[in-house]
C-alpha cells in the first residue's frame, strides 16, 4: 500500500490542488486510525481514476 506522502505527491503531479492536499498531509498524523484509513482510501481511488482517465488513446493506423 502506498504511503500518504506518495499518494499526495502523485496526485499533485497530476494536477490536484496542492494546498488542500498539503493540509491533509499535515493533519494525517493527528487523526484517528479510522480517519487515516478513510483518507488513504479516498486518495488511492482518486489516483486510480485519474490515471485511468489520462491513459493515452490508441493512435489511428494510417
Amino acid at each position: 500500500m502506498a504511503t500518504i506522502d506518495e499518494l499526495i505527491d502523485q496526485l499533485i503531479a497530476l494536477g490536484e490542488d496542492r494546498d488542500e492536499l498539503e493540509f491533509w498531509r499535515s493533519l494525517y498524523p493527528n487523526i484517528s486510525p479510522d480517519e487515516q484509513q478513510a483518507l488513504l482510501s479516498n486518495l488511492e481511488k482518486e489516483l486510480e481514476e485519474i490515471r485511468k482517465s489520462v491513459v493515452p488513446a490508441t493512435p489511428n493506423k494510417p
Partner: protein
Amino acid sequence: MTETTGQEIPQQTPEQPAQEKETIIEKFRAERLKLWKTMSLKMKEHPKMARVLSAAVNATAGAYIKLSAEAYTGKTIDQQQLTPLGRIVHAFIVTTGLASYGLLAAGRGELAAITYGSSWAAYALMYGPELISPALQTAADKMGDKHPKTANVLRLVAKTSEMPKKLFFKS
C-alpha cells in the same frame, strides 16, 4: 521498445479532455469534505478543547445570521466566493453557534459553552488563524503528558488553523 510500469504517470491527451479529470477531482474532494465535517463534529464533543477555545474567541448572535446566509449562497457579504470547504465550515459555525443559544435557554450552560466554543474555534480557523494556532500549540504542549488525548485534539485544530485561506475562499 520502452516498457512502462504502474508507477509512471500517463500524459493527458486531447482525446481525454481536462474536464473529465476535473470531474474526478471534484468527486473525491467532496468525499474528503465529508470526512472533514465528521472530524469537525468530533472536535465539538471534546469539552476541554471547547473550554480553551471559548476563552479565546467571542461573538454576537447577529454574526450567525450573516454566516448562515453565506453558507447558503456560497458568497461572503463582501462578495468573496467560498469554496466547498468554506461553506461546510460556515455551516458548522452556524449550527453549533445557534445550538449554544438554545442550550443556554434550556438551562444547559456547560453544554452551551462547549458548542459555543466549538463554533468560534471554527470561525477562528477561517478568519483568524494567527490568533488561534499559537494558543492551541501552547495549550497542547502544557497538557501533553497529563491529557494526551486532549492535547492531540488541540494539535489537530492548531494544524487545521494553519491551512491556507485558499481552502475557504476562491481567489
